[in-house]
């Protein structure tokens, strides 16, 4: 998986590409840490548009992100979730934890 972090005012957009699974730890962490480190950022948007697969390890990483974001008083939004990624997020009922758009 590739991950990049770009800034749009108070929003950090983390765009993911490829398979978001147990091999993505480092890539994902580096991208979100960029967004978390910016004091002006109020919201992190994780863009799933180019993600074709996610597994339970990815859900674990999202939980860690949420924990870090809560401590930094930042919101987390998951955007453009569709297909298999959407199904996995739905079965785990992650919409109860994250804003989905």
């Amino acid at each position, binding site marked *: 998986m590739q991950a990049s972090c770009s800034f749009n005012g108070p929003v950090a957009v983390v765009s993911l590409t490829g398979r978001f699974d147990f091999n993505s730890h480092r890539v994902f962490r580096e991208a979100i840490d960029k967004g978390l480190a910016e004091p002006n950022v109020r919201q992190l948007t994780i863009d799933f548009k180019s993600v074709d697969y996610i597994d339970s*390890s990815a859900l674990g990483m999202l*939980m*860690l992100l949420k924990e870090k974001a809560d401590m930094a008083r930042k919101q987390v939004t998951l955007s453009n979730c569709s297909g298999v990624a959407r199904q996995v997020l*739905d079965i*785990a009922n992650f919409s109860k*934890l994250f804003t989905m758009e």
Partner: protein
Amino acid sequence: MQLSNVPMMILVVDDDRMIRLLLRRFLESCEHQVVEAASGEEALTLFAEANPDIVLMDMVMPGMDGIETAKQIKKMRDERWTPILFLTALDNEADLVAALSNGGDDYLTKPVNFPILRAKLSAFERSVMLNKRVHEQSIELARYQDRSREELRVAQHLMSRIVSGDKLADPFLSHWNSSAEFLSGDLMAAARTPGDVLYVMLADGVGHGLTASLNVLPVTQPFYTMTAKGFSIVEIAREINAKVRQLMPRDRFISAVLISVDMIASRIEVWNGGIPKVFVLDSSGAVKHEFNSKHLPLGILPEYMFDSKVEAYPINEDLRLIAYSDGLIEAGDEGGELFGHERLIKAITNCDVGHEVAAIQEAIVEHLQGHTHHDDISLMVLNCQRALFDEMRLKAKAEEDIVGDKLTPGWRFMLDLGPAELKRVNAIPLLIHVLDQMNVSRKQRSEVFLILTELFANALDHGLLFLDSAMKETLGGVDDYFDERAKRLHDLFEGRIKLEVAVIVEDGQNVLRLDVEDSGAGFDTTDVPDSSALIKVAHSGKGIALVRSLSKQVVFHPPGNHVTVDYVLNAVKV
């Protein structure tokens, strides 16, 4: 010219003491350590002892010559590269070729030109150090491998004990587990409550292999101990949730489904957090219901946010339940096409009752065409058959265990609960635990459990919460009833329930006397069904009829908020 200078251990082999001394002086001035050997034989001994990084070797020596010694040295150490520089007075090309093709890495002519020696050492230094590091790392890696193999062995043993198949031996249950690695991150558990209700759990930890299986360890203990005590599946789920949150890092949650199959109340209950939908099928394979994941997985939400809503479905015919981990429906063939729900249902529709697991295995194997699946697969099939259940009950009756002679009459135990306790405490497991200590047999315990559960539910639902059983009669009514019940219990601010158990002697028998009294208004006691009504009534009244069928006598005291039940334990030994 700047030469790097990492101190090395250098073995100097020469029969000429003078040359050895010169080389030692020079090499030590370059900060290297030196060991000297006066012959090939001595060189071999020292080589093993001193473990040098580089060897300076005289070609011509009495006894074992330089080339032979070099060969032996290379043989002694084939896993780590040790460069050998020949020192030679020869300027004969043929001999140099022989030297270099027989284990030598370079050569210097005598008399030794020190600047050139230094430059050559420096060139070798980098390779030697790199090679040394690779070698050390490979040793480290081998050690690590041994260690992790050992850890795996212990973990596998532990897991096999904890998740042993014999715990899954239940007439209703067939199962299958196939792990993607040495260890499965999935876990299946099954047990019966004192009231013969079957509880099963399928849990799927984050990730695969060792860490995933460590994840699911904390869930087994609460499941088995709390089932044995007769707690509800929601209470078990709540406990596991708290435990996982307390023990595990936040990214290591557990998806789990807990299922309760109660053939006496004819009801299936499911709490599903993060497991794919559980199918309910009839004998012909038609899908009657789906229990979708309604909750977050265990270990995510704090206690106060835990959602304890269960979904229920009535058992009005023989049913089959299929629960499985996502590894099953996501098993992909070469083209990446997933196994999916349709193939799963099709496999069950085309097979005889009782052969579901084998049919699904066949379908998976056919779909994968010899490929491996990348995630753990777990599958549980529950056959809820009335005839099978009746057979089990009969068998249990036949195996009636002997009540211990230690059972003595004359003791009493009382619980008096107010609104705060009623919200928090499940009183029935507490009482069953007391009976355990009093040598009441297993079968009797399960009957007493049924009676107590019924009386307590009546006191709470009707006496304090004013719920109407008629609500259960409508379609989806059971769900609505339990939702309403949870809501009213949450808002309860007054009322008490008193439970008392005592063993007395009556008509030459040891009798367990159960008293349940609530602070409610009571009801019309003349309208209570007798045990023959068990067949006719659906939900309401069924419970009391069941209690009558199990007891010596049931007495409702006016105004109907107090009931006494006598249950025969055994004849008093004279």
